[in-house]
């Protein structure tokens, strides 16, 4: 594929416009010191520390209002200055990772909850609001915003929209794309638009016109900046119940996952399978893991939430199916413990072991492929084969931490899955050569996913190096990428928004 070349865009010098930026947002909200900029280069691991300087924005701007964002965009568009919006910086597809420096638009200062409507069950927020903090406020009126990613305590609404995030409770209560009623977006030209349905900002449904709102889910900062959103809230569930079943083989767990998936139980939050490699990893390297009987090779976890009556009935129904499918109920302690740690399965420094059993510090990364049910076994076995090939060759650098398999779609428990392989990587020891090896591993995984009929990404986005080339050449074929390029050019004539991301530089 053609190499990225930004010279043809004739970008202006950000350094020449610092004073104008200060006039717009106030001098205290414009930062040019190296440490302020360098810490906003990375999103989630793995980060190419060996070439950190290539990704450091020229300036960090913290806007405080829609008007300020709009003025910054107008300035950037006039002088052709690259702009990279940044939410919590915890996205796993590197959306907030600048490819051509520019202005880092850090949106976290806009963190006000503007309105709670307990009649129409909506909350209006600025993009810097975090879900955990939001739910503390909503809890006071018995409401609940159900978006529940691993980054629940960290991520912010703007980033959840920009990356089209996925929620672990999505099979029950939907994913962010299902939970936004309407939103305000500042376009690359500085124009401010409201995207939604119907005549009010709180109307959820309409068949009128194109579905413009959805276009802004997962654009990874290439089309605009969300500055306000009206979110759909649900009633707080009366009870929640996680349950944990052990299986003697992958096949048995896989078949049980299918049967409970099509059982018709409506109060499922999610069904999650831990494959044999995941259980091996937890036994080997997770000191907090509660020991399981040796006969357990895989686990299926079923979590329900709703009224007490429906959850009790669901428990009974699922227990019956699991028994028939040779599953062993493992008790509440395991299940509650694991459900409580669902937000811990996320990027942090982890201790793994090398070939000699010595502890090595690595950092957590996960691939987030989507896979259809029929191909799931071939896919997960294939994933481990790929990762292990690299682990064997590069001891101390990579580690295979097994797979989690979650129900993929919103409001349903069948059809396809988020099949996540957790790969640990020694980011600190990264070299240019090892980075290329890492990208090769990513490409192999992405190709396997697409070849088997799935997607490269169901929750992060696919604009990281290694993903994006496979995406363009294998997944977004039959005219899809061509259409993306046309849309990008239409919205952003000067290619100032997150230039290079998703290789949309090829549009110009």
């Amino acid at each position, binding site marked *: 594929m053609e190499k990225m070349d930004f010279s043809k865009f004739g970008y202006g010098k950000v350094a020449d416009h610092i004073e104008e930026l200060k006039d717009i947002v106030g001098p205290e909200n414009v*930062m040019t*010191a*190296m*440490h*302020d900029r*360098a*810490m906003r*280069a*990375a*999103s*989630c*691991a793995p980060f190419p*520390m060996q070439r*950190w*300087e290539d990704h*450091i924005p020229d300036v960090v701007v*913290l806007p405080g209002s829609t008007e300020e964002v709009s003025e910054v965009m107008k300035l950037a568009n006039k002088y052709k200055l690259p702009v990279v919006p940044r939410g*919590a*910086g*915890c996205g796993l597809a590197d959306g907030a990772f600048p490819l051509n420096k520019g202005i880092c638009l*850090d949106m*976290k*200062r*806009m*963190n006000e909850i503007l309105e709670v409507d307990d009649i129409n069950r909506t909350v209006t927020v600025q993009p*810097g609001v*975090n879900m*955990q*903090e939001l739910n503390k406020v909503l809890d006071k009126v018995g409401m609940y915003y159900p978006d529940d990613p691993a*980054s629940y*305590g*960290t991520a912010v609404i703007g980033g959840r929209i920009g990356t089209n995030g996925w929620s672990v409770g999505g099979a029950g209560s939907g994913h962010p794309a299902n939970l936004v009623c309407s939103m305000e977006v500042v376009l690359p030209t500085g124009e401010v638009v409201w995207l939604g349905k119907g005549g009010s900002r709180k109307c959820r449904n309409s068949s009128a016109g194109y579905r413009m709102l959805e276009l802004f889910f997962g654009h990874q900062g290439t089309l605009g900046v969300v500055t306000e959103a009206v979110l759909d809230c649900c009633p707080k569930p009366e009870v929640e119940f996680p349950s944990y079943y052990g299986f003697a083989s992958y096949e048995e767990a896989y078949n049980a996952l299918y049967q409970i998936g099509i059982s018709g139980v409506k109060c499922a939050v999610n069904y999650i399978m831990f494959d044999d490699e995941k259980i091996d990893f937890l036994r080997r390297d997770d*000191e*907090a893991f509660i020991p399981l009987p040796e006969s357990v090779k895989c686990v299926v976890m079923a979590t329900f939430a709703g009224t007490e009556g429906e959850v009790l009935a669901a428990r009974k129904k699922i227990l019956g199916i699991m028994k028939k499918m040779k599953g062993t109920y493992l008790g509440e302690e395991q299940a509650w413990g694991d459900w409580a740690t669902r937000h*811990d399965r*996320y*990027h*942090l*420094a982890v*201790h793994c072991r090398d070939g000699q059993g010595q502890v090595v*510090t690595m*950092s957590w990364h996960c691939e987030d492929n989507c896979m259809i049910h029929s191909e799931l076994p071939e896919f997960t076995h294939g994933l481990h084969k790929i990762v292990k090939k690299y682990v064997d060759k590069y001891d101390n650098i990579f580690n295979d931490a097994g797979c989690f398999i979650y129900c993929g779609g919103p409001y349903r428990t069948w059809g396809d899955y988020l099949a996540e392989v957790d790969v640990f990587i020694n*980011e*600190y020891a990264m070299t240019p050569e090892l980075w290329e090896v890492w990208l090769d591993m990513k490409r192999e995984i992405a190709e396997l996913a697409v070849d088997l009929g799935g997607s490269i990404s169901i929750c992060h986005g696919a604009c990281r190096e290694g993903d994006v080339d496979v995406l363009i050449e294998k997944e977004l074929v039959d005219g899809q990428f061509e259409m993306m390029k046309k849309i990008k050019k239409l919205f952003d004539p000067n290619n100032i928004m997150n230039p290079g991301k998703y290789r949309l530089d090829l549009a110009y």
Partner: protein
Amino acid sequence: MEILSYKKFYEDPVKKGEKVDDELSKDCYNVFACRHKFCREWCPDYVEEGNESYTSYGYHTGLLALSRGNGDLSEMKNAYIHCLECGQCELKCPNTMFGGDFYRVTTTTVDLVRKMRRDLHAQGIDYDGFEEVQKTIDDFKAHDAGPDEDLTSWAAGLDLPFEGETMMFVDYYNAFQTREVPIAAAKILKAAGVKFGILKHPHITTGELYETDEDAWVDAAKKNVEALKEAGAKTVIIVNPHEYSYFIKEYPRYVGELPFDVVFITDYVNDLIKAGTIKFVKPYNKKVTFHDPCSLNKLCGNYKAPREIIAALPGTHAEIEDPVLQWKYCCGNGVSSAFRKALPDVSYKIGVRRLKHANDVGAEVLLVACPHCKDMFAETKTKSGINIEPVHILEVVAYCMGIEV
């Protein structure tokens, strides 16, 4: 609270134009590698300012970037002053939660911030507003150099000896600025029949000095320990939670295990109440809530005694939040008062948030266990007009005992 990590490599200064120590770089990497950023959402400075440069993640990542050649020490002059040293980020850090349990290594942001303030000061790189802080240090140093009688003038008429198996340590802030606090403490103990003494000449303990001139502060620390030992102390009661954190967390690293037990005043008073030695004769008919001092709750894990004391107060209606949920709050002063002096506006906003929260739970009185919190809230109350009275818990105990303070 058990102290898990003292990082020896913090002792090597970070110097302009010189390579950052490998151990420090790796340690910073552990925080950078965690993109959970739990440190961020509850950082009182971040809650107000929305700027993650000034969080544990920001501080560690900035230094890691510097160690990789992407940084300039002189540009960092105003970065580290944004830390309140409250310790919430250390407690919420996944590295502390996982690594602390299994490998006994925790994240130590407060130490790092103190170290960086010191290292920068040594190279002449001081944050804006440092002059005010230096003035406090100079004032406190002048007290230390001044006559003994000044240092104990708060105790005039209390007839306290300068020796005893039980000694009460009173810092300069309490001795000169919030005298009602040590006076209440002394009168409560006397009324309960406790035989105790005070130091004839306590030496300087202020945190502003600790993070500016470590040697001078350690020198005074050694003198304090020696003087208490010479006075015959077997138990030392501390009245200021900042000093309590210094005595139990910082002093041992410089002088080794202390030759006496260190007890915070609320723990001591609580034991006397439980033993029936302290008797209440008057009700305190108020709706109260309690603000945990950062230095006590977050830095030392000490939160039970104030709650038990408040529960024992006659007539008092209390609505008190879980100590973990209070990690998010600070009065705005900071454990070293440098924050309040250099960033008065942010400090005020943090205080307003806490007062508003006390208002939300329906309190008319905000009880505190720290003289700095009391002073900060009193100022915030006056400026903001939020009608919540900050009162020190010892003053209420004394009131219920029928003691005039």
